[in-house]
């Protein structure tokens, strides 16, 4: 089951660059939350703070509080533990090129030392079915490299890989921006399916996508969270002038 995320006064820096300023919001469990805003507004940095990927950059710094299911991920647990509970799908599909399709999906468990064959088989099949990829790859699981699939299939493979470690939250950083419309539609259908079991946070440049998949939407601008409300409200009756300007296409 998914868990909620509470963010209090989160600040983030890249070197001297203050990329996030005093972000406070509450992401409810088992819903899809979309984050929109122009390029460079900090929305990617924000999701990378939610699973402590931000700090893998040596010049990055972060302050504030992020509670996932009530646990402060910065003070009460380790980065490795956090990332096991919070899966991430990146902008460009990044399957491990030397691994088969099967090994890609099993990698999260195997690299953490889990090796029971029968269970791995089950997890791989379930994750690939969950990611709507099973039917397309079930005959080549161990024969083909993950890199041999099409872009859309690779992205679904990455989703399956993230789901295989059974996370509570799934972060998606523009998961469809490198894909064609057909693959994009498949990913969106998938998000719809997955949110019954996971809390999903999706960064997107595509406002129609946010409107289609998300219950709630946050609008970021210049490192600040301008508005956070139900998707319906944001797209029909935003309370901030800047949100309205952005969604009506007046800038950005």
């Amino acid at each position, binding site marked *: 089951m998914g868990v909620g995320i509470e963010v209090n006064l989160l600040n983030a820096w890249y070197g001297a660059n203050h990329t996030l300023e005093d972000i406070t919001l509450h992401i409810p469990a088992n819903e899809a939350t979309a984050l929109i805003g122009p390029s460079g507004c900090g929305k990617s940095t924000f999701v990378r703070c939610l699973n402590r990927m931000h700090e893998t950059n*040596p010049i990055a710094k972060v302050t504030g509080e992020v509670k996932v299911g009530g646990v402060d991920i910065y003070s009460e647990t380790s980065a490795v533990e956090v990332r096991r509970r919070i899966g991430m799908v990146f902008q*460009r599909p*990044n399957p491990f090129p030397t691994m088969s399709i099967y090994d890609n999906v099993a990698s*999260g468990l195997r690299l953490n030392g889990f090796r029971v064959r029968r269970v791995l088989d089950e997890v791989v099949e379930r994750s690939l079915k969950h990611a709507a990829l099973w039917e397309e790859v079930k005959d080549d699981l161990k024969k083909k490299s993950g890199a041999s699939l099409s872009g859309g299939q690779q992205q679904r493979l990455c989703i399956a890989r993230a789901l295989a470690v059974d996370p509570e939250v799934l972060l998606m950083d523009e998961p469809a921006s490198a894909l064609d419309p057909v693959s994009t539609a498949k990913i969106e259908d998938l998000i719809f399916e997955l949110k019954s079991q996971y809390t999903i946070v999706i960064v997107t440049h595509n406002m129609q996508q946010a409107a289609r998949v998300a219950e709630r939407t946050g609008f970021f601008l210049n490192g600040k969270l301008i508005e956070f409300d139900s998707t319906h409200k944001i797209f029909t009756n935003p309370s901030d002038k800047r949100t309205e300007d952005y969604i009506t296409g007046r800038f950005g």
Partner: protein
Amino acid sequence: MASQLQSSRINRRWRWFANHMATVLAVGATIAVIAPLVAIFLDLVYKGASSLNWNFFTKTPAPVGEMGGGMLNAIVGSAVLLGVASAMGVPVGIAAGIYLSEFGRGTKLSNLVRFTADVLNGVPSIVMGISVYALIVAPEKTFSAFAGGVALGIMMIPTVARTTEEMLLMVPHPIREAALGLGVPNWRSVLSITLKTALPGVITGCMLAFARVAGETAPLLFTAFGNPFVSTALNQPIEALPLQIYVYALSPYDEWHRLAWAGSLVLIVLIVVSVALVRLVTTRGVLKGAS
């Protein structure tokens, strides 16, 4: 309109010329690279093949004046020396390369290590021999296979370390992020994902270093020293193919000259065969579509 067509025809002719010019230059450069290798190999076959027979691989050297005899001692000795060298140079080199690329990026220590490796790469091999003589042979009061292996091993380190670093840097950043994003500890991600992805290139680096030291004579003069008998003991002097070729080539005897040619041919073939074998073993089981 007509003049435009005219000029485009001239353009087309010029493009045809430039295109074929570039092809000719590229082919010429390729031939210039390959020709010396082929020439050396043909010369070796011409002068050495006639002295190659079963005895060459099964007998130790015959006394001066006697016909026959072989280089079994040198073939075994080279294998032992290269084994010791690889056991030392490959792990240390790869570990240093991993440090340079994955852990020490931008730190003072890594810059120092990189600089040291580059200087070490430029140290004349005879100096390496003398250093190891002072460090191991003099205190132990005996020439030994171990000392020879260490001299060659040290020479392998910079090549292995720098190619490992370069190959790891070529692994795309998103691949590392994917592993970290799954909750894999950094050390595990480096070994099981980054290094594994870069492995073909890393192995090429190791083989380059191996092939280079396999032909070294100078670092062995004061360390392995040479041995007319078959020996595998690490604490005894040992023969090596380049060492024996060196001694035979400088000798005044025609029979030894012929054996030196044959030894050179065997050395080159052994290097090529071992490089090909490692390639074959390590590229087995590569998946369809893997990059």
